[in-house]
């Protein structure tokens, strides 16, 4: 029997065989049937955070105090606003990682439920949370501070946002916390008389001063102005020692505390609660001394204005 097939039909047939062969093979060889059930149960959807603050904002630290930084963000949860646990909101400022500086809103570090945050519902699925974070004066100046925000919902789902950055500006500040400094009563020719208390110079900013200069002036009598005590009778050192490394004021009256032998009198920023390496920095003590002249003075008050200048060099 001869079957006549056209070329075109042959090609179509061959193609059909090639295409259907795997299906037929699978159906014949793996002839196995099983019943199974697919169940997807969506129990919770995580919340999402959108930050309201303008990115790149800047903060001026406050001398000797804390700057209050206000962060506002919006939390959305598809499961409904009731599902958002606003009291778990944590706002954390970080600089550098993993061992950089960081400061958090109070709710994150205290037992208070909501601490320094507050919230208000925007609708059925979102809530606005406002938090304040205290930034101390010794926080490093940088444009690389990052705001890390996290919040949880009542089912334990969490959201995290670290898209917001900001700048901590430079703060140059010094303060002298003492309320009085005096030499008390002295006698003519009395040597090595120390002023009490000593001069404590605090760096109450976040900048570092490479130089601390004192400019003394002659003390003039308040009653008899012809009497004075010249600046060369005064001296300053950085230790409480009558002889040790004292720097006498020259006739110009200007002493750079760094000139005192063996000292490295810079005034770096810092505080005992600051992060390393600034935890042991932030102040400088100077001890003032006088050698009272043996003559030419009368019993009276003497006064003058002295300058203390700190220098920030780049």
């Amino acid at each position: 029997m001869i079957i006549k097939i056209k070329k075109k039909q042959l090609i179509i047939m061959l193609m059909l065989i090639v295409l259907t062969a795997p299906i037929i093979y699978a159906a014949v060889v793996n002839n196995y049937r099983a019943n199974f059930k697919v169940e997807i149960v969506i129990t919770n959807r995580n919340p999402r955070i959108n930050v309201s603050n303008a990115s790149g904002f800047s903060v001026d630290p406050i001398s000797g105090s804390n700057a209050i930084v206000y962060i506002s963000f919006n939390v959305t949860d598809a499961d409904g606003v009731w599902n958002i646990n606003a009291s778990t909101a944590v706002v954390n400022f970080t600089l550098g990682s993993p061992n950089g500086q960081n400061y958090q809103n109070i709710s994150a570090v205290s037992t208070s439920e909501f601490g320094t945050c507050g919230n208000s519902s925007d609708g059925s699925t979102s809530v606005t949370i406002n938090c304040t974070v205290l930034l101390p004066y010794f926080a490093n100046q940088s444009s690389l501070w990052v705001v890390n925000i996290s919040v949880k919902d009542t089912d334990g789902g969490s959201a995290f946002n670290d898209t917001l950055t900001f700048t901590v500006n430079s703060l140059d500040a010094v303060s002298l916390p003492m309320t009085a400094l005096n030499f008390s009563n002295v006698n003519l020719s009395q040597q090595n008389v120390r002023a009490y208390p000593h001069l404590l110079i605090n760096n109450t900013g976040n900048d570092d001063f490479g130089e601390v200069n004192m400019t003394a002036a002659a003390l003039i009598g308040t009653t008899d102005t012809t009497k004075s005590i010249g600046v060369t009778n005064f001296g300053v050192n950085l230790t409480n020692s009558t002889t040790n490394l004292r720097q006498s004021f020259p006739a110009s009256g200007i002493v750079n505390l760094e000139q005192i032998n063996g000292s490295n009198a810079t005034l770096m920023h810092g505080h005992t609660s600051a992060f390393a390496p600034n935890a042991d920095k932030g102040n400088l003590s100077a001890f003032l001394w006088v050698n009272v002249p043996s003559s030419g003075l009368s019993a009276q008050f003497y006064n003058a204005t002295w300058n203390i200048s700190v220098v920030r060099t780049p």
Partner: protein
Amino acid sequence: MKSIIFLLLIFIVLSTSGYSISVASDYLVNDTMELVIGTSKIYGIRLQNPTDYKVGIKIDYDGNFIKVIDYKEVYDLEPKTTGYKILLNVTAPKNATVPGSVYTVGYTVGEVEPSGGGGIGLRLKINKNFKLKVVSNPEKFSTKDHINYDYLIYTGILLLPLLYVILNKKLKKNVKTHPKIQSKKFKDLK
């Protein structure tokens, strides 16, 4: 005479909050401000007075680079002031011909009267310095910045043979067409 006792040298600060001076300023990366030659930029500083009493602050500055906008002889700060804004107009010198030149620019804020106001006063001053780096204008075409001289030399060397061929052809054409040159050529041949 030696036994005479007299009251002497009393430093008194009347305020319980002590002496203090403070100035916040815009953050500069690496303490450096970059400016195009001859241009200016506004740099903001904010005076603070953390004390419980009113203070007068004076500003001295390097007039070659800085001008204070709305300058005052004395800036009076109320107690607990945290942001008395002062704007400094910082200008890069026009005679800085070399881009990349770095200058040190500074200003000083200081108390007018010694703090406390009684007895012997201590006057605080802060001298702040930063770098001013003069840069070339990125929008202005500068031959110094944009031409690669090595590249130019190599291109020139490559073009020399082509130039030679063109000139040579032109010369030959001139010789053929110019009668004087042609006759001279015949003479030379003879």
